[in-house]
C-alpha cells in the first residue's frame, strides 16, 4: 500500500507537513503540504468589523488569538482606549485560549511519544489518571473561552471596543472556583513533563516576544511592535506555501520557552514554584524540547492570571461592556502572545473603515528556520543513531515546537 496518500505525513501536528532527512548532506527539511489560504486577500474591501471574524478562521486551535490580534490592530488604528474591566475579560479569554491550546498540544500531540502510545485516547485504559488530567485541563480552557468568548472554537463576543455580551458575576465566581480546583492538575502536569528524558541539545539562539508594546529579545532587540517588518524578514521559498522568518539570516524562537526564558513578566507564585522547585532548571537551557515543560508551567501561571483578573473584574465598580470610537482613515498594528508565540496583525483602512491592506505574521513562520537549524544540529551530533531513530527524534523535535502549519499558510 506504499502508493496510498492516506498515510503519508507527519502525524499529530496541526496541519500538513512532511519531513525529509538527507543523510548524505546532513540536512533536514520540513516541507509544507497545505494549500494557500490567502486571508490577507479575503478581507480586502470589507468593513473593519469583518476582520476579526474572518481571520479567526485561519486557525481552529488558536482562533481567539487571531481575534484578539485583529482587534488590537484595529483599536490601534482607531485610537480606541478600552476600560480596565474590558482588559480583565480579554486577559481571562487569552488565558483560556492558551490553556486550551497547550493542553491539546501537550496531551494529545506530544505526550503519546513519551508514553509509548499511538494516541492520547489509548491512555484512557493505560494511564487513566493522566487521561483524566488531559480531559480536565482541556475542558477548563474550553470553558474559559466559552464563558467569556461564547464558544470553544471561533469566539463570538469579542469586538473592537469591547464585548457584545459579558458573563454574569455568578458565572465568573464559579469559574474562579473551578480554576482553583484545577491547580493541582496543572502542577502535576509540570511534574509529568519535567520528568521525561529529552534528547540533550544545546544550541544558542535568539528568543523574541512582544511585551508592553515592544518586541524584545535576549540579544538586545528592543523596538516598537509596529516595526515588526524590520525586526525580521519573511522569506518566500520555491515550492512552499509558508514563509520563513529570519533575523540576519538566522532562525529565532517565539513561544512558551522564549517567553519563560526572557522572564520579562514575573511569574505568579505557583508558576515560579513550578519552575524553580518542580522542574529546577535554570533558563535559558537552549534545548527546544523544553518547550513542552515551558507550556506546562505556563498553564499554572495562566490559571493564576485568570483568577486574579476575575477578582479585579468583580470588584470593579465602573464596568462597561463596550467603549465608543470614531472610524477614520488610518492604519494600525497589533500583536498578541498566541500559544505558539507572537502573532502580528496589521491593517490599513479608508475613511469609511473599509480594509485596503492587511498583513498577518504567525508564530510558526517565525519558528520554522530555527526548527530546521535544530534538526540539522541533531543530525550532526546524533549521527550515531540509526536513521529510523533519528527520524523519530526529529519528529519529536518538530512536535515540541508545536508548529501550526495551518496558521503558517494563512
Amino acid at each position, binding site marked *: 500500500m506504499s502508493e*496510498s496518500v*492516506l498515510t503519508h505525513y507527519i502525524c499529530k501536528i496541526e496541519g500538513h507537513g512532511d519531513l525529509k532527512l538527507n543523510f548524505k548532506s546532513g540536512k533536514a527539511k520540513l516541507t509544507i503540504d497545505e494549500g494557500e489560504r*490567502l486571508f490577507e486577500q479575503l478581507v480586502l474591501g470589507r468593513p473593519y468589523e469583518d476582520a476579526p471574524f474572518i481571520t479567526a*478562521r485561519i486557525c*481552529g*486551535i488558536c482562533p481567539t488569538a487571531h481575534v484578539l490580534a485583529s482587534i488590537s490592530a484595529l483599536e490601534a488604528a482607531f485610537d480606541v482606549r478600552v476600560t480596565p474591566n474590558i482588559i480583565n475579560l480579554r486577559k481571562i479569554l487569552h488565558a483560556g485560549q492558551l490553556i486550551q491550546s497547550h493542553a491539546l498540544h501537550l496531551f494529545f500531540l506530544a505526550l503519546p511519544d513519551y508514553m509509548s502510545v499511538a494516541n492520547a485516547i489509548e491512555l484512557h485504559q493505560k494511564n487513566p489518571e493522566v487521561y483524566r488530567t488531559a480531559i480536565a485541563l482541556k475542558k477548563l480552557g474550553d470553558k474559559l473561552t466559552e464563558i467569556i468568548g461564547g464558544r470553544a472554537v471561533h469566539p463570538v463576543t469579542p469586538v473592537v471596543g469591547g464585548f457584545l455580551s459579558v458573563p454574569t458575576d455568578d458565572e465568573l465566581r464559579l469559574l474562579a472556583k473551578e480554576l482553583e480546583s484545577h491547580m493541582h492538575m496543572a502542577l502535576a502536569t509540570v511534574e509529568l513533563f519535567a520528568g521525561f528524558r529529552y534528547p540533550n541539545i544545546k544550541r544558542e539562539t535568539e528568543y523574541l516576544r512582544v511585551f508592553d508594546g515592544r518586541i524584545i529579545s535576549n540579544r538586545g532587540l528592543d523596538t516598537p511592535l509596529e516595526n515588526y517588518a524590520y525586526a525580521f524578514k519573511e522569506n518566500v521559498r520555491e515550492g512552499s506555501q509558508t514563509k520563513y522568518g529570519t533575523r540576519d539570516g538566522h532562525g529565532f524562537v517565539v513561544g512558551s520557552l522564549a517567553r519563560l526564558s526572557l522572564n520579562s513578566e514575573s511569574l505568579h507564585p505557583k508558576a515560579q514554584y513550578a519552575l524553580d522547585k518542580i522542574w529546577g532548571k535554570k533558563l535559558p537551557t537552549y534545548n527546544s524540547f523544553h518547550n513542552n515543560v515551558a507550556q506546562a508551567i505556563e498553564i499554572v501561571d495562566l490559571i493564576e492570571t485568570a483568577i486574579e483578573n476575575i477578582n479585579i473584574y468583580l470588584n470593579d465598580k465602573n464596568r462597561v461592556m463596550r467603549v465608543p470610537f470614531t472610524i477614520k482613515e488610518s492604519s494600525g498594528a497589533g500583536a498578541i502572545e498566541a500559544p505558539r508565540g507572537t502573532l502580528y496583525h496589521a491593517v490599513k483602512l479608508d475613511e469609511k473603515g473599509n480594509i485596503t491592506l492587511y498583513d498577518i505574521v504567525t508564530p510558526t513562520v517565525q519558528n520554522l528556520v530555527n526548527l530546521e537549524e535544530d534538526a540539522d544540529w541533531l543530525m550532526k551530533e546524533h549521527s550515531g543513531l540509526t536513521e529510523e531513530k533519528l527520524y523519530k527524534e526529529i519528529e519529536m523535535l518538530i512536535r515540541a515546537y508545536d508548529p501550526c502549519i*495551518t496558521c503558517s499558510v494563512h
Partner: protein
Amino acid sequence: MKPKIAIFDMTDCEGCELEFINLREKLTSIAGQTEIANWRMGSTNNDPGPFDVTFIEGTPITEKDIEVVKQARAASRLIVSLGTCADLGGVQSWIGETAWKKGVKLVYGENYKTTSKAPKPISYYIDVDIHLPGCPVNPNEIAEVLGAILAGRKPTEARFPVCLECKAKENECLLLAGKECLGPVTKGGCEAVCPSRGLRCWGCFGALRGGNTRAMKNLLTEKYGKERAEQLLAIFYYQQNEYKELYPKEK
C-alpha cells in the same frame, strides 16, 4: 465488529476535527465503540482503509488534497463532509477563481508558482453521503451522526432556519434591531450560539434549502447597499446554487 472510522483534513483551520477532541468524555465513549483507524492529527499507526465512515474536513486545494479526497472515497462506505469548508467551501472560497489567483500573487509575490486549485467543497470532486456544515461544526451534531451510524439509522438533519433555534432561546431579534443578520435564510443546527451572545448570524451553516434568499438579498440591499449585501451573502453561500441564482456573474 466495531465500525472503522477515519478523519482526514484538507486545507483548513482544523477547528472542526478539534470539535472531536472537544467532545471529551463523549469522545472516549465513541472511541470505545468504534475503531479510529486513521486520524493524522490525533494518532500514529494509521491504516489505509477500507473504512466504514470517513469524515473529511477542509477544502481540497493542493494536488495531494484532491488525491486524498478521491482515495478516501474509494476506501469508504460513507463519507461525511465535516464542517463548512468541506461541505460548502468555507470562507477561503468566497472569492471567485480569478480573484483567488490574484490573491496568490498579492500574498506570495509575482514570481511564486503554485499547483493548487481555487478552493471548492469536496462534493465538487466526490459524492458525499452525510452533510455536517458549520464554522465550526456543532459537536452535538457530530455526536448525533456517530450515534445514528452506530444505531444503524439515518442521522436527523436540521431542516429549519437559525431563527427557529434563536426564537426558542427567546433572544431579541438582531435583524429587527438593525444588524446584518442572515438567520432567516440560514440552515439551523448550530443552536443559535452566535445570536444568543449578541453576534449576528453570518450564515456559516449555508443557505437553507427552500429559504427565500432573494427576499433576503433585497432586504439587505435596501438597508446596507448593493456591495455590502453581496459581501454578506457571499462569505458562506458563494459556492451554493442559492447564491449563484442571485449573483450569476463570477467576480
